[in-house]
């Protein structure tokens, strides 16, 4: 039971429109016939139900008390069962077709959004909080699902039952029919009014529930502070305040319900009373038959009572519309084309990179890079030095085309960078971050993540050894099959970094981007990581985002950044000749050793 090819290929981008109802209609592309079936089912089920009452009328008026009754009764009984079977079948069909539509639309929406997210640009992700995007992909999608599965169908059920019943009533007796629907408009208005209020009260209650959760969530990890200041009493009172507010709001929500339902009961009851008495009087004067009376009272129930719920569905539908809008907003975002590009070499790139007056401006207008010029040969190591926010990270993010440079020319092997397809570039470039992101899978899967070929166990082990992580891995009870937990929490910072190095080794890219920071590890591990990195850099053009001077000294070219500009450039020896930031930083390093010596010497004298 999977979706047909054409259905799943429908590009949801086309479903984005400012008109929300039209948008939902377009979302149904490929499912419209199914949904039409569901609607038809509703109508047929309603018709069967109404027919049951008409059959009752026929039975009472035409058969009961007749001489040949004994022959006909079994047939009538059979007809009753048959009608019930019809009603049941159509109800079932309608509900399952609606479910198929709703689930199908949801499936397509989920898959589309998932793919969409990973194809949206860095710029989009920079400005969108994770929680918000997640919310749209989960709860909003679910609200859209409920729109099709429950609400639209619920409204349809009530209306079709009402429609068919009223038609039948009109055919039984026009006067009766009209007297029996007097209360319906009042009921509809009342239920709309009530459910709008109730949904507000419900939201207020949920809001308070969230506040209560937050209070609790803050209190639990803060238990040390609470105890340290012996503030248990204070905390109890604070929680009690929030808890009491929740109670008050819950009470309000319940009070609304406790008013609406009996009120609508009285309204419906009064309508029943009017209907029954009118009907009974008419029967007694002989205007209608007893069978008509019975059918009428039966139908009356189905005209009135379901109306009480109409408001609920309508109010819920409006929240479904809002959710659709929120989802459509995500879908409407432009994707970053991965394959677009005119230059697609067969083999690997050599890694010769030339920056000529390259600049980058964020959409916010902030200029992060300003006329950067330099050139590097294949296999060279380029070190980027500078304080946070000086442009180092932005520069390396241009290479895989995570961001598009705003001005100047940037060539790779002599071809303008934006002529290469993004997917090609990203396969050629490997990145090792300071705090690498691992996926909640096994170590093995994390190592081969993104490696587009079969990798043998031997190869994996070799990479792990080269990255100095093999020893750590085999000490885990499950070895390479150890699950690393969400974002790799089961591993230490240093271990994560080495897994990422191994991952990059397996990927074997021509260009390498390293974030050289080992702040969170001890000296021993730091040494291991340094060695692993050295191995990784061999034969690849490497960009190092450097945090300390040692890792810079061996680079072929050092770029010193300040406020988006390259203020100094050259090899270590050259830069040491100049009077500038580089030498000052370097001197500080030397001063350090001297000061330490002094300190220890002074202690010796005491």
């Amino acid at each position, binding site marked *: 039971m*999977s979706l047909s090819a054409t259905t799943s290929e429908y590009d949801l981008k086309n479903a984005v429109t400012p008109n929300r109802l039209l948008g939902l209609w377009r979302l149904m592309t490929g499912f419209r016939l199914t949904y039409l079936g569901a609607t038809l089912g509703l109508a047929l089920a309603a018709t069967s139900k109404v027919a049951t009452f008409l059959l009752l009328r026929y039975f009472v008026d035409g058969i009961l008390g007749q001489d040949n009754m004994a022959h006909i009764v079994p047939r009538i009984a059979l007809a009753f069962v048959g009608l*019930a079977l019809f009603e*049941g079948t159509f109800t079932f069909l309608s509900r399952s077709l609606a479910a198929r539509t709703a689930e199908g639309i949801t499936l397509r929406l989920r898959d589309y959004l998932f793919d969409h997210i990973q194809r949206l640009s*860095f710029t989009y992700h920079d400005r969108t909080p994770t929680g918000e995007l*997640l919310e749209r992909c989960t709860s909003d999608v679910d609200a859209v699902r409920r729109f099709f599965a429950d609400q639209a169908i619920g409204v349809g059920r009530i209306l079709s039952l009402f429609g068919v019943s009223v038609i039948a009533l009109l055919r039984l007796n026009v006067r009766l029919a009209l007297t029996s629907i007097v209360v319906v408009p009042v009921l509809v208005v009342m239920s709309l009014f009530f459910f709008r209020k109730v949904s507000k009260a419900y939201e207020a209650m949920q809001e308070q529930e969230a506040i209560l959760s937050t209070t609790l969530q803050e209190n639990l990890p803060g238990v040390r502070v609470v105890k340290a200041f012996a503030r248990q009493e204070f905390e109890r009172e604070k929680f009690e305040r929030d808890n009491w507010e929740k*109670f008050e709001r819950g009470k309000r929500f319940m009070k609304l319900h406790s008013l609406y339902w*009996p009120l609508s009961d009285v309204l419906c009851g009064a309508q029943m*009373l009017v209907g029954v008495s009118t009907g009974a009087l008419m029967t*007694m004067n002989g205007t209608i038959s007893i069978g008509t009376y019975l059918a009428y009272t039966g139908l009356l129930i189905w005209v009135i009572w379901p109306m009480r719920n109409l408001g609920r569905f309508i109010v819920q539908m409006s929240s479904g519309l809002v959710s659709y809008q929120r989802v459509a907003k995500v879908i409407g975002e432009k994707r970053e084309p991965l394959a677009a590009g005119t230059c697609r070499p067969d083999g690997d790139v050599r890694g010769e990179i030339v920056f000529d007056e390259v600049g980058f401006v964020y959409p916010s207008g902030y200029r992060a890079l300003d006329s950067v010029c330099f050139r590097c040969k294949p296999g060279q190591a380029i070190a980027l030095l500078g304080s946070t926010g000086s442009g180092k990270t932005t520069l390396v993010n241009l290479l895989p085309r995570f961001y598009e440079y705003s001005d100047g020319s940037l060539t790779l092997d002599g071809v303008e960078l934006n002529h290469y397809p993004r997917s090609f570039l990203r396969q050629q470039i490997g990145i090792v971050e300071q705090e690498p992101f691992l996926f909640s899978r096994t170590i093995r899967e994390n190592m081969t993540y993104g490696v587009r070929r079969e990798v043998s166990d031997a190869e994996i082990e070799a990479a792990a050894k080269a990255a100095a992580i093999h020893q750590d891995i085999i000490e885990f009870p499950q070895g390479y099959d150890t699950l690393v937990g969400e974002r790799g929490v089961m591993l230490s910072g240093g271990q994560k970094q080495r897994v990422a190095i191994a991952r990059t080794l397996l990927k074997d890219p021509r260009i390498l981007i390293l974030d050289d920071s080992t702040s969170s590890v001890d000296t021993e591990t730091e040494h291991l990581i340094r060695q692993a990195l050295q191995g990784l850099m061999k034969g690849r053009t490497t960009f190092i985002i450097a945090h300390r001077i040692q890792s810079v000294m061996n680079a072929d070219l050092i770029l010193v950044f300040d406020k988006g500009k390259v203020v100094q450039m050259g090899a270590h020896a050259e830069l040491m000749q100049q009077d500038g930031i580089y030498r000052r930083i370097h001197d500080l390093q030397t001063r350090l050793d001297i000061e330490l010596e002094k300190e220890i010497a002074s202690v010796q004298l005491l």
Partner: protein
Amino acid sequence: MSNYYDDEEELKTQDNLKTIRRTLAQTRPHWRWIVGFLVTIAIVSVLDSVYTYLRKEIVDQAILAGSQAVFRQALIAYAATVLVQALGVFGFIYLTGILGQRILYDLRQAMFNHLQELSFAYFNRTPVGWIMARVTSDTERVSNLLTWGLLDITWGVFNIATSAFFMFIINWRLALIVLTILPILLVVAAQFQKRILAEYRRVRRFNSKIVGAYNENITGVRVVKALCREKENLREFSQFSGDMYRASYHAAWLSALFLPVVQMITALALGSIIWYSGRQAQWGGMTIGSIQAFVSYLTFIMWPIQDLARVYAELQHAVASAERIFSLLDTVPSISDRPGAMDPGTVRGDVSFEHVYFDYDPDTPVLADFNLQVKQGETIALVGPTGGGKSTIVNLLCRFYEPRKGVIRMAEHDYTELSLHAIQSRIGIVLQTPHLFSGTVRENIRYGRLEATDEQVEEAARVAGAHDFIVKLGKGYDSGVGEGGQLLSVGQKQLISLARALLAQPDIFVMDEATSSVDTLTEALIQKGMEALMEGRTSFVIAHRLSTIKRAGRILFIDDGRIVEMGSHAELLRTRGRYYRLYVQQFRQELQREQELYEMGAAAS
């Protein structure tokens, strides 16, 4: 730990009854409410049957018999029933709804209050998420069971009983025939519900997988892009979403089938009524009104039955929830006041650890025969590798834990003779990652002494060096700090927690220095604040900064739960032991950090 998160743990059945009894006992203070809603729902349910009976009477006695008098009576009775029933509906929704909220309130308050008493050890072994789930969703389930669950059951029982009663009155033979379908209905409904519930459980499982996949794809999107993993990710995700599609479609399919099947069974019963009544009408035994009434009563019986399995499943879950709630409420705080615990009014004076043994679990001892004498007013710096026992010493000092063996003396008493309040309210603590509560800066500082005036709060902030940055915040002291203080930097949070500790005017000061980098200026402010706090107080500092370490009266190098080296900075440097090595390493790192944070920016400008 995984089963901490499993909401559908299986029950130990032998305890079920006990748990149910205890759960019911929760309602004792509100028994009037319970009786109230049970009576009203019973009335409502009985009146439902009365309606039907009245309609039958109208047909049989009024219309067919042509009696105006009976007709009027019936109508009056009908109207009265409508009104009384509306009152009943109001009554049961009001009583049940509000009682439900009240029980929820009571349970949560009781749990929260108990949580405040529980010891550190409990919080260390129990994930916050687990406790959260107990206080939020389990309480909801239990309160639902005690109100709506009880209501559902009562309503169902009364519906079946009164319907059956009236059916027997109308025609006992027919009633007997019809009631034979009851067991069939029961079995069918139970089978359906069991499968539907299982299917929805699967849906929930798949759903959490899908949410997880989304979460990872959003947070890790940069890596996904860098590794060109898009296609394969989508392929993997499609499996999840496909599973989800199949499971939820199947669940919806089953529920869609359920109702019609139950209705079909009822229809068969109805068919048999008509068939039978057709024959009886020949003997004049069954009236038309009776037939109609029979049909209605049958429906009344059908409703609770198709719901039965759901109610039963909810009952099971609620009992499991109640069990977990009670397990939390029954947890005895491992540290509490001894009988006759006293408050000497101050804990100033010497502190000593005498032959102290401690472990978090018996297999891995942390401290063994630990001894330490500290003079009033002395500053002790604790240094050494992570896991060496520094935090344990501080935790024991604050009596978050108690020694397994040995004695800790404070103000000349074995501290277990003192009340917890006497100790903990007089120790000022500043943590490595300071915990602030959402609220304003002022509220957070005042946490140290609730009755402090605004002037005193500001004075404390000034001494702690926090005043300057606070006034620069948008609303000064009234600026919100965000959930957990997330709107402030780590350094700022530390300054505020220093001010908070200062305001409390503790006798003993305990600080766990931050390892994460704080900018130089804030760092200097923190130093100043610490000094203000250490002034004249016995202080214990888990130290990471050289300046702090050097200033301490005594440095303890702690590893493997022992004092490896002890002495002043100069003494320890001369020994050229482990402290010396640590110091040199620290020295380098600190200067490097300075170079990163300060020099680069400054040198360039």
